[in-house]
């Protein structure tokens, strides 16, 4: 159960809760990530970095947060 002040969402395949009204930028900061190294997809569509500060999480959002790693 989530309190009324919280919303539940999915982050990289895991269920998570956040305070209602939290933004993507706040989530990225909270996770200790460097924003310039993270790209965000919400419900299948990329959310541009410039929109992170305004974009509020909604209940049921499915987020993918990705970065670059070694690969061939």
């Amino acid at each position, binding site marked *: 159960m989530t309190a009324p002040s919280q919303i539940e969402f999915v982050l990289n395949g895991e269920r998570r809760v956040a305070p209602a009204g939290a933004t993507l930028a706040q989530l990225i900061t909270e*996770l200790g990530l460097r924003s310039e190294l993270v790209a965000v997809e919400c419900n*299948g569509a990329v959310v541009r970095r410039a929109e992170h500060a305004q974009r509020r999480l909604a209940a049921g959002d499915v987020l993918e947060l990705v970065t*670059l*790693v070694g*690969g061939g």
Partner: protein
Amino acid sequence: MNPATSSTEPVDAPLVVGRTTLRSRLLVGTGKYATNELMRDALALSGTDCVTVAVRRVNLGRGEPSLLDYIDRSRYQILPNTAGCYDAKTAIRTAELARELLGSTWVKLEVLGDPRTLLPDPIGTLEAARELVAQGFDVLCYCSDDPRLGVRLAEIGVASVMPAGSPIGSGQGVLNPNAIRILLELIDKPVIVDAGVGTASDVAAAMELGVAGVLLNSAVALARDPLRMAAAMRDACRAGRNAFLAGRIERRLYANASSPLEGVIGGAAGGVLGAKA
């Protein structure tokens, strides 16, 4: 001037892929190195100016150094891949995320068939390539070595057709050089052999076919001495390219002496070496 003195070094045109120009014809992956420092040093020794990276979910544990901290972006063009994607839709989403991460429309498209062979799925590859080209990406397209598929990819406007020499990470070299040769005759886009390189001679042999470049990763990262292998790949790429441009001699069944046949001592004037009366 001393007639024994010469200092002419052959020149080569740069490799142009889409809207990007590369000095080196070797493209090198950043995966599987024991440490980021080793990767950084191997990249430098390889002489490459284009390195591939993968897009993956962030590690939600904190404080991890980023791969990008070890890659000088003023020196290297970063080519993100869609490795690990088994359908066109996931590959397209991954490419869109890569564009957001790097602010660049370069992408190495991979749509794979299954995890055991990692062979490219030609139908999914064509489908994803078409969509990404329409979105304005410069698509460097990993694909099988079927020349007709290469033609279809070139027709839809990929920046480079990149046939696998052999399966990814297998180290078998270029298994079907004739398919690569036919592809080179059929399309005008740069052809880059991507995957399967095991050692330096594989790179040289591929370049001697006339391909525009070679992309490799495991052969350097997993060599006993990655730094020395990186240097070997650099030299092999240049050697193979120069050999291609120089034009090899024809193969013959019998010998063709390099030294004059006339004037060998001991015989009659005008005698020919080995000739019996």
